[in-house]
């Protein structure tokens, strides 16, 4: 069964066309990584699926249109106010609010236990009573993921879940996601090529139009088409050329040459001064 079906999807922001005639079918159980340049329409695609932006075309989730009951969405952390006076557990528990209005609502012990379980799964249960303003970027991302998981989604939509966080936290998040993929379909917008290499089952390359959808094997042609110029690697969403394939080794402090494929993965962890 198709977890997500997108047909002839177009999105306009005023006169600017952010997405043009996107057709995408995602099978149940898939783990799709969406790649593309900044402004290529990756987040817009996710926002169209959750109905946040007006669009033309057809979107179906598990065969139903306009049914978001099976969808869990994790936004970019930069979209939220990190200084809002709320603690970690309260944010996570808000996933229990799923009616139009809640009159003098109290969270049950069962929900509180479940919330703690998800916080534990992501290794942040000890922060439950902390204010969100005291969390690091990685901890906050994990909290948003825990909240999304508490909604028990069948289709998990993640908008740059590892943006601006340290490699160790990214790795942990990808491990958790790979495990969760056994139970749910995951669609993840990312710039992180190490994620593409390590956990996704398929990729979709977007730059207003769908350039590629298939196995997670990037080649120079796809990258060139996606970014509009010949490139060798992507860092933080920007295309870079490697002149030549130099990588900085943090342990030895030296730069050395490596193959294209090695450099492509290495840049995420060890950006080098010689990249342009």
């Amino acid at each position, binding site marked *: 069964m198709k977890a997500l079906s997108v047909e002839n999807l177009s999105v306009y922001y005023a006169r600017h066309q952010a997405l043009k005639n996107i057709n995408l079918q995602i099978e149940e159980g898939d783990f799709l990584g969406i790649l593309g340049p900044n402004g290529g329409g990756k987040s817009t695609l996710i926002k169209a699926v959750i109905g946040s932006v007006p669009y033309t075309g057809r979107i179906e989730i598990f065969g139903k249109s306009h049914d978001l009951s099976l969808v869990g969405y994790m936004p970019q952390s930069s979209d*939220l106010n990190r200084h809002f006076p709320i603690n970690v557990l309260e944010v996570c528990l*808000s996933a229990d609010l799923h009616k139009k*209005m*809640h009159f003098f609502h109290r969270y049950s012990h069962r929900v509180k236990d479940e919330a703690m379980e998800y916080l534990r799964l992501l290794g942040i249960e000890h922060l439950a009573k902390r*204010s969100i303003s005291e969390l690091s970027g990685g901890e906050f991302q994990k909290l948003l993921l825990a909240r999304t998981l508490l909604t028990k989604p069948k289709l998990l939509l993640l908008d740059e879940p590892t943006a601006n966080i340290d490699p160790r936290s990214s790795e942990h998040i990808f491990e958790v996601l790979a495990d969760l993929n056994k139970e749910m379909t995951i669609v993840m917008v990312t710039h992180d090529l190490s994620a593409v290499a390590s956990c996704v089952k398929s990729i979709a390359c977007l730059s207003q139009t769908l350039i590629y959808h298939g196995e997670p094997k990037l080649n120079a042609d796809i990258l060139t088409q996606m970014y509009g110029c010949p490139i060798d690697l992507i860092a933080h969403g920007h295309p870079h050329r490697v002149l030549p394939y130099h990588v900085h080794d943090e342990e030895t402090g030296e730069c050395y040459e490596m193959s294209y494929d090695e450099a492509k993965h290495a840049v995420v962890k060890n950006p080098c001064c010689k990249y342009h």
Partner: protein
Amino acid sequence: MFSAILEYEFLQHAFYAIVLGSIVCGIMSNLIIEKKMLMISGGLAHTAYGGIGLAYLLEFDPTAGALAFSLCSALFIAFLHKKSHVSNDIFIALFWALGMALGIIFIGLIPGYTPNIESYLFGNILAVSGQDVLAMLLLSALIVFCVFAFYKDWQIFLFDEEFARLQGIAVNFYHYFLYVLVTLSVILLIRVAGIVLVLALLSAPAASASLCSRNFTGRLALSVLFSFVFSFFGLWLSYTLDISSGACIVVFAFCIYALLLVLNRKKA
């Protein structure tokens, strides 16, 4: 001043108005600040001037005129905010100026004696009547009930509206309802601080509380306390020096906020 409060009815009314106004300010200022609606509150307060002018022209209760004018404007701005891609600031500025302009025109059209509406512009808590106190009591009870009955919804609506919508929470209802609550608060506070100064009462308590607490409930409680302290000492200054109560409250609130800011910086 305490013995005077027991002795004079007008001071008792002023005291009741301060207590009720503090509760409303404390709660609403948090919602307004977290939803970044401060300028909207200012705009709605100034829009009320048009209603007050119309009420004087047609000889009905000015507070009812202010409420009707501000409520219509609030719902219209809320609608435009949702449906239009034009910046909200533009609508706020336009309604802000339009309300004042209409007020000036309506008052100019009143034949003969021009009423003194300074107390609406700058507030005069000492002129609060028993009827005003009763109206304030009803309005503040309504606001407190609406916020606390749906506390969890408000919390998540303010923090992450997108997530609240996906969870099926009635975000559109809360969007419009917040505008209505802000309007009611503004109208209630006009008697205390006046149209021009009401913005300070809707910002200073929550801003001060935010320097002392990282917890939403704690901030609400502290904001109510700060609001009461600002208003009470402002009233005391006003009574002692025989000057405008609204202005005294605002200046005192600003001084306390500035002091807290400095202390907070030193602590950091």
